[in-house]
């Protein structure tokens, strides 16, 4: 009897617990706590302007992040940019006036003697929208997924990305694997030119009429990274990333000059002509590229709260390009303001198929060629200063001014060509103004 009573007591006690729990679950506890859920917006405007009236760009961007808790967030970012100005078309300067067929074939533009040939039909507007969701899976794992779409009048890109992170060693070490894929479509003005074919005089040529409207390329990305907390004030990251592109990787608007290399003739080093027309070829790049890079970044906060942020990247690819990038920032922090000088140095070696021009005796035999200075030997420097002011309501105004300088170098040519400036430098100024709220 006594046992039976005890059992009933136990059973009823269990019953009371279950009901208490169930009622708490139903009513949702009593908490008056509010999660700090809000949109954090960072909006900025970039003005980019190159010297000598080359490209200038205006680029507004707005990024909105909703933080659900300290680890869960949803971000949307909208970027628009408009480019105007002129861009080098790849041809060499000459001691003669040069006339070029415009990309659409419906017109032409010219470069005076000794002047850099610039394609001034260059004009574009781009809109890009991206979104990313990041959340924890449990204490040890987190993931992120994202999507990206961008559109300009001759280029569309669609991409997805995902990442998986594993925390180790009490969150002092984070291993991250990121994967991305994107699919791009190029539909150049005037159609897709045939690589290494001569640029025809106008749109009536069969080279024009037989063109495809569009080409595509696909890109796969994988990043493996380790983030390590070093001590109370220092954090470090190493990444290895691999990026493969395949499909149409050529720039449809870039051409090459063919230079007369007959040292016995009086046009040695001048533009090679056939039927009294200068010969220019459309550039052609391989249809695949494999890039790999190693990246290291360290951030350290000093006793006076200033922060040093240094990174280094080494990149190499199967086109023969290798590059080194060093980026350093130092943030002086005052009560509610900061001043951040920034320095960046970048150097790259040229791609195997890069050639400032083609020789008339051999131009029919090359498989790939590009005179795009971006694939040549290049050194660039950026010097900048960022200033920020944080208001009492935790909004922030910031601005940044920076100067970008490029120096190209390479083979100086022969004959008449040696008197031409084949590797002009580039200077650009960038002004960014932004507000976070």
């Amino acid at each position, binding site marked *: 009897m006594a046992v039976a009573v005890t059992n009933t007591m136990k059973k009823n006690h269990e019953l009371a617990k279950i009901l208490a729990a169930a009622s708490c679950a139903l009513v949702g506890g009593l908490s008056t706590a509010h999660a700090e859920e809000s949109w954090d917006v*960072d909006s900025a405007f970039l003005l980019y302007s190159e010297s000598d009236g080359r490209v200038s760009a205006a680029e507004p961007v707005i*990024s909105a992040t909703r933080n659900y808790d300290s680890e869960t967030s949803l971000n949307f970012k909208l970027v628009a940019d408009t480019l105007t100005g002129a861009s080098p078309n790849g041809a060499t300067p000459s001691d003669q006036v040069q006339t070029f067929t415009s990309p659409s074939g419906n017109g032409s533009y010219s470069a005076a003697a000794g002047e850099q040939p610039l394609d001034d039909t260059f004009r574009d507007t781009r809109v890009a929208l991206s979104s990313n969701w990041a959340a924890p899976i449990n204490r040890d794992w987190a993931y992120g997924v994202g999507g990206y779409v961008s559109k300009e009048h001759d280029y569309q890109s669609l991409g997805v990305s995902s990442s998986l992170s594993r925390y180790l060693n009490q969150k002092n070490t984070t291993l991250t694997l990121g994967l991305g894929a994107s699919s791009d479509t190029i539909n150049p003005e005037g159609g897709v030119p045939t690589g290494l074919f001569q640029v025809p005089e106008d749109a009536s040529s069969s080279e024009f009429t037989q063109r495809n409207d569009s080409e595509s390329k696909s890109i796969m990305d994988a*990043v493996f*990274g380790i*983030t*390590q907390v070093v001590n*109370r004030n220092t954090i470090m990251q190493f990444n290895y*990333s691999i990026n493969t592109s395949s499909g149409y990787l050529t720039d449809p608007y870039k051409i090459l000059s063919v230079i007369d290399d007959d040292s016995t003739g009086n046009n040695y080093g001048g533009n090679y002509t056939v039927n009294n027309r200068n010969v220019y070829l459309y550039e052609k790049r391989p249809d695949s590229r494999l890039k790999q890079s190693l990246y290291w970044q360290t951030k350290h906060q000093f006793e006076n709260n200033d*922060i040093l942020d240094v990174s280094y990247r080494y990149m*190499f690819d199967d086109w023969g390009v290798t590059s080194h990038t060093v980026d350093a920032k130092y943030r002086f922090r005052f009560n509610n303001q900061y001043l951040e000088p920034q320095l960046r140095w970048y150097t790259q070696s040229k791609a195997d198929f890069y050639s400032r021009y083609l020789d008339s005796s051999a131009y029919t035999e090359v498989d790939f060629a590009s005179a795009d200075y971006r694939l040549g030997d290049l050194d660039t420097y950026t010097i900048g200063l960022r200033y920020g002011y944080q208001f009492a309501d935790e909004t922030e105004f910031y601005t940044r001014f920076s100067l970008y300088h490029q120096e190209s170098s390479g083979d100086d040519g022969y004959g008449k060509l040696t008197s031409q400036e084949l590797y002009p430098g580039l200077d650009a100024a960038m002004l960014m103004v932004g507000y976070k709220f």
Partner: protein
Amino acid sequence: MSKRFVLLSLVGVVITTTGCSEMGVKAWERETLAQQEMSLINEPVESSLNDHVYFSKEASSGGQGFGGGGCGCN
């Protein structure tokens, strides 16, 4: 020259990561690391604008990182 460099960096990475278990801080020692300014990409908008400029002017792009570290709050 470049191949040797890659090898050296890889060795560097391996050495540093094997040393990881002795590095790090306790959960309550993350006051500094918890600051937004100490996240590895603390100005994502500036970074993306820079990336766009450099992407269109140079042959290399990408490779940079993502999160990690931080407050370690749960």
